[in-house]
């Protein structure tokens, strides 16, 4: 086995893992702090990806500017969805059905507006690769990876060191006592849901930059992102990042060392192994 091939594959896996973490972070936070298994997170990601396509390819807006208005927009949409969830008293398991319904509606909407055909955002931004020794590092993937790492570390810092982070953790541990100390559960839940929506928008921008789009593609991300979130530990941004990288690199090694067809088995094998060894993970 060629060492360069292995290193290049590891790099490719790191980039995939970064994307898994970025896409999984919002899901992980809402699962942990809201007790909502938000399947519509994937729909939001793809809605953001299509809007990025629309803004960049059709309206010729610079792709770097797109997150500046997509993130606030999705923050509001996700917060409104959370208001509806609170209003109807949807519980953790009910949220699976409700948000899956939203996902189907969004998929139909995407198909209605942009058709089922493939769309590929052709842009000159972040084209090409830089050469690092014998390795080639694609600019777009490297930029996405940096954003993913920064976002996960930033989220960890917010949860660990700020009042909001402490309030969130306290609210999950014991809402009654937290409220005595002035923690406003409802506001916090809207903040978490909105942040998850913003993260979905951010992830969607990279999906549009890196992949061809078709509405049903959102379902193909379910498995690997759920595996990443569960392995990372709910509500743990650094855990999600590490799990994403582990999954991405393992998939890449499976492709490079064994056969590409083994790659889909990897995240689930890792997840089952971890749940067997550490059953109290969720």
């Amino acid at each position, binding site marked *: 086995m060629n060492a360069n091939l292995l290193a290049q594959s590891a790099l490719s896996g790191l980039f995939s893992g970064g994307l898994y973490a970025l896409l999984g972070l919002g899901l992980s936070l809402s699962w942990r702090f809201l007790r909502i298994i938000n399947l519509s997170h994937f729909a939001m990601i793809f809605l953001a990806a299509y809007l990025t396509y629309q803004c960049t390819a059709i309206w010729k807006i610079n792709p770097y500017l797109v997150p500046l208005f997509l993130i606030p927009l999705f923050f509001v949409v996700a917060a409104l969805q959370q208001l509806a969830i609170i209003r109807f008293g949807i519980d953790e398991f009910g949220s699976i059905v409700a948000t899956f319904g939203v996902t189907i509606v969004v998929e139909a909407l995407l198909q209605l507006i942009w058709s089922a055909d*493939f769309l590929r955002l052709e842009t000159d931004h972040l084209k090409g690769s830089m050469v690092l020794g014998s390795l080639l590092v694609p600019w777009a993937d490297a930029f996405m990876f940096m954003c993913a790492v920064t976002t996960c570390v930033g989220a960890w810092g917010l949860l660990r060191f700020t009042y909001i982070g402490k309030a969130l953790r306290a609210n999950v541990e014991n809402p009654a006592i937290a409220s005595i100390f002035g923690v406003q559960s409802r506001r916090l839940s809207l903040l978490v849901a909105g942040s998850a929506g913003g993260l979905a928008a951010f992830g969607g921008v990279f999906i549009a930059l890196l992949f061809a789009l078709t509405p049903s593609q959102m379902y193909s991300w379910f498995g690997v992102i759920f595996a990443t979130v569960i392995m990372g530990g709910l509500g743990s941004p650094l855990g999600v990042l590490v799990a994403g990288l582990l999954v991405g690199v393992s998939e890449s090694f499976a*492709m490079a060392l064994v056969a590409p067809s083994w790659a889909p088995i990897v995240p689930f094998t890792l997840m089952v192994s971890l749940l067997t060894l550490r059953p109290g993970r969720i």
Partner: protein
Amino acid sequence: MNSFIMKVVRSVSAITLTLSVAFVIAPSGAVAQQNSDTIKIGGTLSLTGPLAPTAAMHKIAGEVYVKQLNEGDGLHGRKVEWILLDDQSKPELARTLYERLITKDKVDFISSPYSANIALAVMPVAERYGKALITSTFSMPKLSRYARHFTAWSVGPTPEVSIPTLVLDTLAGAGKIPKTMAIVTGKTPAADFIAAGAREVAKQRGVDVNLYLEYEFGTRDFGPIAARVRQADPDLLFVGALGLEGNMLLEALEKLNYAPRNHFYLYPSPGPLAASKLGANALATALFEDLPPMNQSKAASDFISAYRSAAAQANLPYQEADTQPAAMYSTLQTLTAAVRETKSLDDSKIADWLKVNSVETLIGKLRFDGPGNFGADLTKIKQVQNGKWVVVAPKGFATPGATVIAK
């Protein structure tokens, strides 16, 4: 106030739910109402799900055909209704829907679903009720075990030999006989056996297959595969690609500053591959293209103009009337030809007639006299040249002035 809001929300929820259910189960497309004076053709297409990008083309082609048919004298002087359901790209759902179309909707004929997997699932249902099944894209003669199954995807009885042979012959015609070949294929029934056949053909012709990789359908990260292709650096990259997989591999190769010298894709999404700069000189299979000599007949030009206009109306990004829609159109041409010639609505008579006759379609003259009712091999090889597809082989079908570009 609260109860009012609750009522509004409940109403909206109910409407959304009803619309969602209706969207899934209601007939769509050409026919909204059923009429006993009409001849009913029923089928499914994958209007949603991963197969939807291509099935959308099949839907438009089918609608165009039924419209043209009804603008003439229909079938036996009766109008034709096409009852089209959404199988959501799920074989098990398609099976149920065909059962419903035959037993509840009492369709006279069944039309083709999209994709070999779904056709395979539907075949036992057709067999149970003795219905003739003329599929649009079924390419696996060995799995065509139902006596009344026919296909417009006319790739001959041994495509696993004939397609790779044609690819190598095409390159040889340009004086470039590859010494090495990398085969990368999706693990889908339609691609897998062709790739395995390509390995055998390569061996027989003395071409060294220096890489053979299989990947799962739905693979997103082609980086490690690209790294292995780059390392193998073959004269010919033979990709058993469906849909967008070819583009994804090319993009991953570009990130490694690598472009294949010669590259072939089995069943790619033609629009994105031609539109991408990376698709330059890519080879692919074709059955019909909007190019001379194939677009010269009146039937072809009528189909092309009607399809393009309908595709534009449906907001499809790729509006070329090429292989996929032509295959769907040809299935209906085949069915109506058999119905007219036998002057019958009897599936057994139609099937018997098809086995011993040929039918002139957009794709060419279809025969069904070989193993698995596969007949003539009408495969062509096309190539992306200057951002557009041109047919480069066989010679009789080559676009005038076009020759294969090989490195």
